[in-house]
């Protein structure tokens, strides 16, 4: 579904990614774990076209998307939930969802996606008329995911969905991610600092360290890896 080859990205003179490669098979949950500054967010932003790669290639559903503008990439079915629950705080929940369907033209399909979002996050339906800025952190994250789902993605990239959310809600959000994947066949690329949680729900994992993939494999195996345990899983 997605293949990234030798991706290199720099911020001015500072190299953020030094040749990152990985592939994602359709229907999987793949996680990218790593410490702060390892290049996880940079990777996602480059895939969705928000940042430009210096070298390397990104292929999505057998098409080279490396040089495409962000809105063209979204239109091809690649959704991105940015880090820090970036909802449009001045717009209502309803309007935020409508913005998510910005590139959708078929009203029947939009209505269906809406119902689907409500089935995953019933809480959003109760808050339709409320300004997104007044929602709790967890609700904003639900809205950010719901908004991306309105764009009818084949692959959904989630950037740190657990960031700054009440612990009780984190497990709910992760259950929903699994649900989106399992019941609706949407492939997931999950970036997480909470490695334990990410490895628990994912099929495959890649470990990113200062702009390079240093470890990869089935999540189940990585959880047992002593090196990884020491570095990311708290012993």
């Amino acid at each position, binding site marked *: 579904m997605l293949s990234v080859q030798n991706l290199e990205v720099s911020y001015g003179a500072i190299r953020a990614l030094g040749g990152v490669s990985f592939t994602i098979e359709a229907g999987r949950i793949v996680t990218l774990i790593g410490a702060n500054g390892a290049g996880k967010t940079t990777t996602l932003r480059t895939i969705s076209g*928000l940042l430009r790669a210096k070298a390397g290639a990104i292929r999505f559903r057998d098409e080279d998307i490396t040089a495409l503008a962000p809105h063209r990439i*979204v239109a091809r079915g690649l959704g991105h939930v940015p880090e820090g629950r*970036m909802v*449009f*705080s*001045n717009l209502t929940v309803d309007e935020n969802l409508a913005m998510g369907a*910005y590139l959708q033209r078929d009203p029947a399909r939009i209505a269906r996606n809406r119902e689907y979002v409500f089935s995953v996050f019933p809480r959003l339906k109760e808050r339709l008329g409320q300004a997104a800025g007044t929602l709790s952190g967890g609700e904003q994250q639900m809205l950010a995911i719901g908004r991306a789902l309105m764009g009818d993605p084949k692959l959904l990239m989630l950037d740190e969905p657990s960031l700054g959310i009440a612990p009780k809600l984190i497990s709910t959000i992760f259950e929903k991610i699994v649900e989106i994947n399992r019941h609706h066949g949407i492939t997931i690329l999950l970036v997480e600092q909470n490695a334990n949680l990410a490895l628990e729900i994912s099929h495959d994992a890649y470990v990113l360290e200062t702009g390079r993939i240093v470890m990869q494999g089935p999540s189940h195996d990585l959880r047992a890896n002593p090196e990884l345990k020491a570095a990311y899983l708290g012993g």
Partner: protein
Amino acid sequence: MTAPAPTRYPRPHVALLAALAVFYGVFAVSDRIDPYYLDVLVGVGISITLAVSLNLVNGFTGQFSLGHAGFMAVGAYLSSAVTLFLGPRLLGEEGGSAFGQGALFLAALVTGGLSAAVAGLLVGVPSLRLKGDYLALVTLGFGEIIRVIFMNIEPLGGALGLNGIPAYTNIFWVLAVAAVTIFTVHCLVHSTYGRGFIATQDDEIAAEAIGINTTRYKIVAFVIGAFFAGVAGGLYGHFKQTISPAGFDFNRSIEIVVMVILGGMGNTVGVILAAILLTLLPEVLRSVAEYRMILYSFLLIVLMIARPQGLFNFKYRFGRAKS
């Protein structure tokens, strides 16, 4: 006497037509109104047009432009050129009929607006890649460049400017243009397409991540804003009957920006009220002569400390999402 705010009405089209009818009524009895008040009212109407159009860029789309006076200059010069140089040829030496003058003026205003919009496109395409203070500096620079260009075009009067522009501007034209500006900005921002402006302002990365072409929105806002600034410039030129590059300097841009900030970014009603207040204030303060500008500045400081969210911003709006 204030331009109505379509925000309050469920049907902006009806409100616009009603407003135009009322303004025509005001115009019909305008010879019975003290000319001084009429002049002030014309100033207020032009300010509203400038502030509401800039609000589309600075308020709704979140781009800080400091070059609005430059676009106003383009509109003022080009529309005056139409009435000065083409007018006598089209209408004859006697000045033609009232209808002919009206049609000529409308054509001149549209020409001024469109040229300003083209200037906005030329400035916007390269500079809107920049953000925040960088964009502010670049637009400031472009505004000054436009002014200096006019200063050096001899057929347009050079540094002396243009004189003897026909006095076509009247209270109806000014208020009608203000109403059309408010109507356009309101309908644009409240349309499905227009939510993209607010989304761009709220969070650019999130907007791009859901497939909004934020660059295009910024350019569209910039071009539409420039168009109405150009029309306002045309009204200004045919009101003052003389224009010079000095009248469109950077102070003028700042004045418009202050109206937008004081009214509350992205709040049309607030910006209209601020435009009215800031145009009337120097008139009211005329009695204290030399202390006028000190008092004006002092009031601005006090207002910004007391109501940083905008003087007339009563609807609580949330800050940007923290990233």
